[in-house]
């Protein structure tokens, strides 16, 4: 019953519904990429710079080396979504962990954790990501870790704020007086109540991570063994005056996906925020 209520509230936001459907489509595309295009998407298969529609074999054309753009978009959806999800997971785990401990214990633990978070926040995010990728090497895993490391601070602050407001509530005090361990109070009592806004934030981090990955790849520091959308934009940059579709097609894919993720985030906010329940 409660679940249907949640879905109903989510669906009341039309934008979120459209966003969720499109994201689902992208996810399906990513899941079945190898079924539609069994060969390596980075294989040179045709003449370079064929415009979309010029050759029916390549509906979205080919890039400057003669690789099938449609195949790279479909396979790129997988890389791009995976990077987004895993980076968001890394950021959420770090953020929730740090925020929960800081908010629950307070005092010097809080001071240290929040000063550390501020330290991370003062470094421009993109430059920090680039630095980490350059030092660790540009592989998919390292890019995910780098994005996770720069994206955890807002989640940590949000979690801390929730914990601060919840830690002295009666139900928590009741747990304490029952002699429940701190760990158990954090994980099973406070966290479930603190989670809804964090989930909304995490969904936005996915969108942010996709943009970070695109920027990193655009600057030529992406993993060259993986077809990602950002790399496609970066490769096509030189040709923007003559073969603009090479940049435009993956650019549109990135834009739609990020927009949809933001809409889904809004929808989650509507569905999870009890204050908006009766809107």
């Amino acid at each position, binding site marked *: 019953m409660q679940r249907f209520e949640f879905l109903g509230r989510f669906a009341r936001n039309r934008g979120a519904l459209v966003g969720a459907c499109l994201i689902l489509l992208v996810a399906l595309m990513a899941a079945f990429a190898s079924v539609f295009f069994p060969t*390596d998407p980075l294989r040179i298969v045709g003449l370079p710079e064929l415009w979309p529609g010029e050759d029916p074999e390549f509906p979205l054309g080919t890039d400057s080396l003669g690789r099938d753009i449609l195949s790279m978009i479909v396979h790129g959806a997988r890389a791009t979504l995976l990077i987004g999800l895993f980076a968001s997971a890394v950021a959420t785990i770090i953020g929730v962990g740090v925020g929960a401990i800081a908010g629950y214990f307070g005092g010097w633990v809080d001071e240290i954790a929040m000063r550390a978070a501020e330290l991370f926040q003062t470094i421009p995010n993109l430059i920090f990501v680039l630095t980490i990728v350059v030092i660790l090497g540009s592989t998919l895993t390292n890019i995910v870790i780098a994005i996770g490391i720069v994206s955890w601070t807002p989640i940590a602050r949000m979690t801390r704020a929730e914990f601060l407001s919840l830690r002295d509530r009666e139900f928590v005090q009741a747990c304490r007086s029952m002699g429940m361990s701190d760990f158990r109070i954090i994980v099973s009592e406070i966290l479930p109540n603190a989670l809804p806004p964090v989930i909304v934030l995490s969904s936005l981090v996915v969108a942010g991570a996709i943009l970070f990955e695109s920027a990193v790849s655009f600057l030529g520091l992406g993993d*060259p063994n993986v077809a990602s959308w950002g790399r496609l934009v970066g490769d096509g940059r030189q040709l923007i005056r003559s073969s603009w579709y090479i940049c435009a097609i993956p650019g549109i894919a990135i834009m739609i996906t990020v927009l949809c993720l933001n809409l889904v985030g809004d929808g989650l906010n509507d569905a999870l925020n009890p204050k908006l329940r009766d809107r």
Partner: protein
Amino acid sequence: MTIKVSRRVFSAGILATGVVGTSRGSFAQGTPKRGGTLVATWGGGEPQACYVPAGGGSSPTFSSSKLFERLARRKMDGAFEGVLAESWKPSADFKTYTVKIRKGVKFHDGKDMTVDDVVYSVSEIWKKYAVASALTDFAGIDSPDADTVVFKYSNPTPEFFFASTLCSPVAYILPKHIYAGSDPVTNPANNAPIATGPWKFKEWVRGSHFEYVKNENYWKKDEPYLDRLIIRYVRDPAGRAAAMEAGDIHIGVFNPVAPPDIKRLTGTGKFVATPKGYEEAVWSTTLECNMRNPVFAKREVRQAMFHAVNREFIAKTVYYGYARPGTSPIYSPNKEFFTADTFKTGFDPKKAAALLDAAGFPKKADGKRFTLNLLSAGWFQENGKVGAYVKQALEDVGVGINLTVPDRPSSIKRIYTDYDFDLAISNQANPSEPVPSTTQYFTTDGILKGVPFRNASGYSNPDVDKLVASIKVETDPAKRKALVFEFQKIITQEAPLLPLVELESITLASTKVQNHSNDPNFLAASWGDLWLAS
């Protein structure tokens, strides 16, 4: 007048639509017009300093060569011509060279240039920084009288080698009264040089441009024709194309814009593109095998790497035809030393597979013979594309490839310091004289950990070392040529490092700019003779 103008536009249009840089011998017509400001750019970034004693790459070479002058230069036809030197002559044993220095040359601060400046520059700057690797046999320099200096060598030194050293891009004559007693590397004059050239330094607006003004007391009468020369830096090729199209920049050297933009801009009839002016600095994209990996112990395996790759495809697709397949470590525009009679490692995947089979690397169950790390140096965008293609080509013959494309500092560190690669795609630019710039990629003494653009493959062969040593001291031009031919035959068969393609660098200029691309290393020429038609 109207008819004249439209005819020029028309002829430029014909030029532009045909193959780049055809017919017109020199980009000049009529009598030079005086005055005006020329704005130039190049296909790279701002230099670390206006002048770097050790060279510091093409960027400071470009900015400093308009101010400083060398003793000599090469002309388009290959002949040597004195600049600050009037003539030079070897002794009978080729161990000393007597050089006559030009009289009446003044530095920009009004002081006379004398033999003392030459002696100081050669012994303190050339030997220690600028052309150290070409002066290993250098034993000192004297000045017997006020217009003569004598170079002394411990071994016979071929005349072509000596003249090439005088023409080296940063072998400048510096003012002793400004540099003596200081550390030349950190001398503040490096960022506001006092020199002898046609252009005087006015200012450097960092992040934007250099402004140079006419040297009124230049020793070459009538030059420079222009009043001002601006070197502007634009980071992005697309930005350069836009600035040139808007008329803000008149000339761009060394591939200022992306190939598709070259076609677009020359198509308007307002620009010409030419590959001329790079004969003494031919760039190539190379593939090298790290000999520290036991897989490459047999030369057949190294040859197979090259047989697997279609160099025509790279030239045509990655470089849009502004490149040609490389066949030898000495490049084809080199009139003195290039030979086509070398060991051939052309595109032949079947042969590559057969060579690998025979070398004891059959395909395993997963379809791979072995897996290699391919590092493609990220300083040129094209290298990443070459890497992507080479990966596919090698995978087609059963060699697994992990491709990485690190940025410039990481690439230099991983190739030339850490030797952290199995195959590397890099670039080099070489003048006609093969010693040491070409040979140091193959000789044992070129294995210098941490020194970029040397022997990173680790290839060491006593026969090659001996051959290069004899090339260095052979003073008979015909015999020397035969030795260099022999060198090319051995290296192409041994294949530790070979060019995939020779790059055609392009200068793009407004049709108004006259007298450009008239030097075999135009980027490093003085540009005193350039002028702007109205």
